[in-house]
């Protein structure tokens, strides 16, 4: 089934070569070999030796093997692969944070490989921005100074760069945080600063290296949604690296799947799901049967009401009446999950004039970790009268899974496929 479509899929990037004014990023036959005398690896003697044998025989590690792809203007291009597939190396060669061993790279109509040191620095200042998984913010700069740093390096005046940085911070929802230091911000907010720093330069091309991988599941999803909105508004050319198929499907206009340093398939998300190019892609997408792909983290939501242990039964009753809830999850001060309090329990505690909601008074609904696939939640969701609490390894409540959210996830995915 997949074979019949292979040609069409693979002809994708090549057929776009012709309309080069539209192509913003083009990689052709890019190799990256780490180790001594990397050039010899490209000779026919070693060229096709498998990665493991090569490392044993020569001590060299191949990160990229003849990688080619083209990204069109305004496209959100996702490079997906597991760790060690070469995706992070690939995105770094685009601005020569990693020097390619061989191959041609054109980014924003510039020959990246041919640049000398000065030209390269100018290119990084003018044409591209990058967002990193670990943010890479300057801890001694305020949020504003961080967001303006790219413009400072470009040599813009203080007023101009601050005005543009403030604008960028507003775009990512950080207005009012200008004078804080990164250390006082949560991970999600730090990554917003990283994004603002990238956007403030108004780059031709935005490179994003697993920007959301270090974030909590709820924040991650929210940032993904915002990136989709932002992209609809700004229409940037984005190269986005991820190891998460779901993220790739959600964000990518087209997806390149990498394995062992090679690109094994470039296609749009539908194509990837319908016609996986080989067993490797299939292995990825087989799991894309929604019930096996989506996890509790992807479908969980904030609870509509949340009681803290120290809140007395009277407060609890008022809140429940206000929200018209018959029950609520209860957490302690550190947001650790304790159990479920029903209206009946609250009424009884109020009558007994208790001041806190004790654990022994609560119902204990078994929580699940965020990486539980939703297939494993079916039983619990259908049998219980309460939503399923999702907790992290410290027992903190991350969100709740409602039956409706599961149905939604399954039905959307069916419609896509």
């Amino acid at each position, binding site marked *: 089934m997949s074979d019949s479509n292979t040609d069409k899929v693979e002809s994708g990037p090549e057929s776009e070569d012709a309309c080069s004014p539209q192509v913003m990023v083009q990689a052709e036959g890019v190799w990256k070999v780490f180790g001594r005398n990397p050039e010899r690896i490209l000779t026919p003697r070693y060229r096709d030796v498998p990665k493991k044998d090569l490392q044993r025989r020569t001590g060299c590690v191949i990160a990229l093997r003849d990688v080619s792809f083209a990204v069109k203007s305004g496209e959100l291009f996702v490079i997906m692969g597991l760790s060690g597939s070469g995706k992070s190396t690939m995105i770094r060669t685009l601005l020569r944070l990693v020097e390619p061993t061989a191959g041609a790279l054109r980014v924003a109509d510039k020959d990246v490989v041919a640049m000398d040191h000065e030209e390269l620095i100018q290119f*990084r200042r003018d044409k591209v921005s990058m967002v990193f998984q670990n943010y890479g913010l300057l801890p001694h700069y305020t949020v504003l100074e961080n967001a303006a740093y790219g413009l400072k390096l470009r040599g813009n005046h203080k007023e101009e760069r601050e005005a543009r940085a403030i604008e960028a911070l507003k775009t990512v929802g950080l207005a009012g945080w200008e004078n804080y230091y990164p250390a006082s911000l949560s991970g999600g907010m730090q990554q917003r600063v990283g994004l603002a720093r990238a956007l403030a330069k108004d780059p031709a091309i935005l490179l994003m290296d697993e920007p959301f991988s270090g974030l909590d599941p709820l924040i991650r999803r929210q940032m993904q949604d915002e990136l989709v909105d932002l992209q609809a508004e700004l229409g940037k050319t984005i190269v986005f690296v991820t190891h998460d198929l779901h993220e790739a499907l959600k964000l990518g206009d087209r997806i390149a799947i990498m394995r062992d340093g090679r690109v094994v398939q470039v296609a749009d998300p539908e194509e990837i799901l319908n016609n996986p190019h080989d067993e490797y892609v299939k292995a990825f997408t087989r799991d894309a049967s929604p019930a096996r792909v989506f996890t509790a983290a992807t479908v969980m939501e904030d609870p509509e009401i949340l009681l803290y242990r120290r809140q007395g039964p009277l407060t609890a009753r008022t809140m429940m009446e206000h929200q018209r809830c018959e029950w609520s999850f209860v957490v302690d001060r550190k947001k650790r999950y304790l159990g479920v309090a029903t209206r009946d329990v609250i009424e009884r505690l109020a009558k007994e004039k208790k001041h806190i909601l004790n654990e022994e008074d609560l119902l204990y609904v078994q929580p699940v970790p965020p990486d539980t696939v939703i297939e494993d939640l079916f039983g619990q969701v259908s049998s219980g009268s309460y939503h399923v609490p999702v907790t992290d390894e410290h027992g903190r409540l991350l969100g709740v899974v409602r039956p409706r959210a599961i149905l939604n996830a399954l039905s959307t995915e069916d419609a896509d496929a």
Partner: protein
Amino acid sequence: MRDFPEWIRIPVADWVDTGMYWILANLGGVFDWIGSIGLQVLLVVERALVFVPWWVAIIAIGLLARRAIGSTRAAAAIAVMLFLVGAFGYWAEAMNTLSVVIVSVAFSVALGIPLGILMAWSNPVRNIVTPVLDAMQTMPSFVYLIPALMLFGLGRVPATFATIVYAIPPVIRLTNVGIREVSPAVIEASKAFGADRWNLLFDVQLPLARPSILVGINQTTMMALAMVVIGSMIGNRGLGMEVLLAINRVNIGQGFEAGISIVFLAIIIDRITNAFAKAKTVEVAMGEGDDEEEHEEASGAAARHG
């Protein structure tokens, strides 16, 4: 057979002597010239210190300490220590000692930080400098007095020279370490935004290495103070000379007064420079210690926004 054979001799001492005499014969003029400039600098600094009335100095140091340490009690204690030095009759000597320390530290920092930066940038430079620094720190400090004496004669200039040689290693080392320990993620991000070598140095590496460099300066200062005392053996006046005189005369009382004055100076300099080093560190990490509530509020606000 057990004794080391007489005929195996490597005459390093002779070589060093020959080299030293060669330097004296051929470059003596240069060292005279350096020495006279050094002397002028030292005298200017000392005159400036002596020119300040003692009570102004005590108040100024007290206020500086208050600002740096942030505690009135500690500042008062420091002011009292300085007052006691004067009350022992050693004000002029203390100012003399201080002037040598100040000039030595200024030279050490001016030479040491650039050298530390070079070490951090280049592994070959590091591999050469590190053993030299090790040797400089292990060598008994008296040894430095001999070439200093030969090059600059007697007095405070050779003492300053010996002090610089003795005290410079920590600031070099800690500049190197501080720069090398800057997170590679921050460096990579800055490079990605087009930072060249100098942008990296002044925007990222030096600011982030600052706590480490300030600790280095603190250590250099303390070592300089220790060496200044030894420098009195080659004719540097000041507190060290008083200690030396007390030893020669077996005068316990005088030795104690001079010794405790040195301790007071050491405490004053250490507390103030240390406090400045810490203050900068806290500034950088600001907000990290903020309580959990505010943190959660912050992320909550962002979440609501989206």
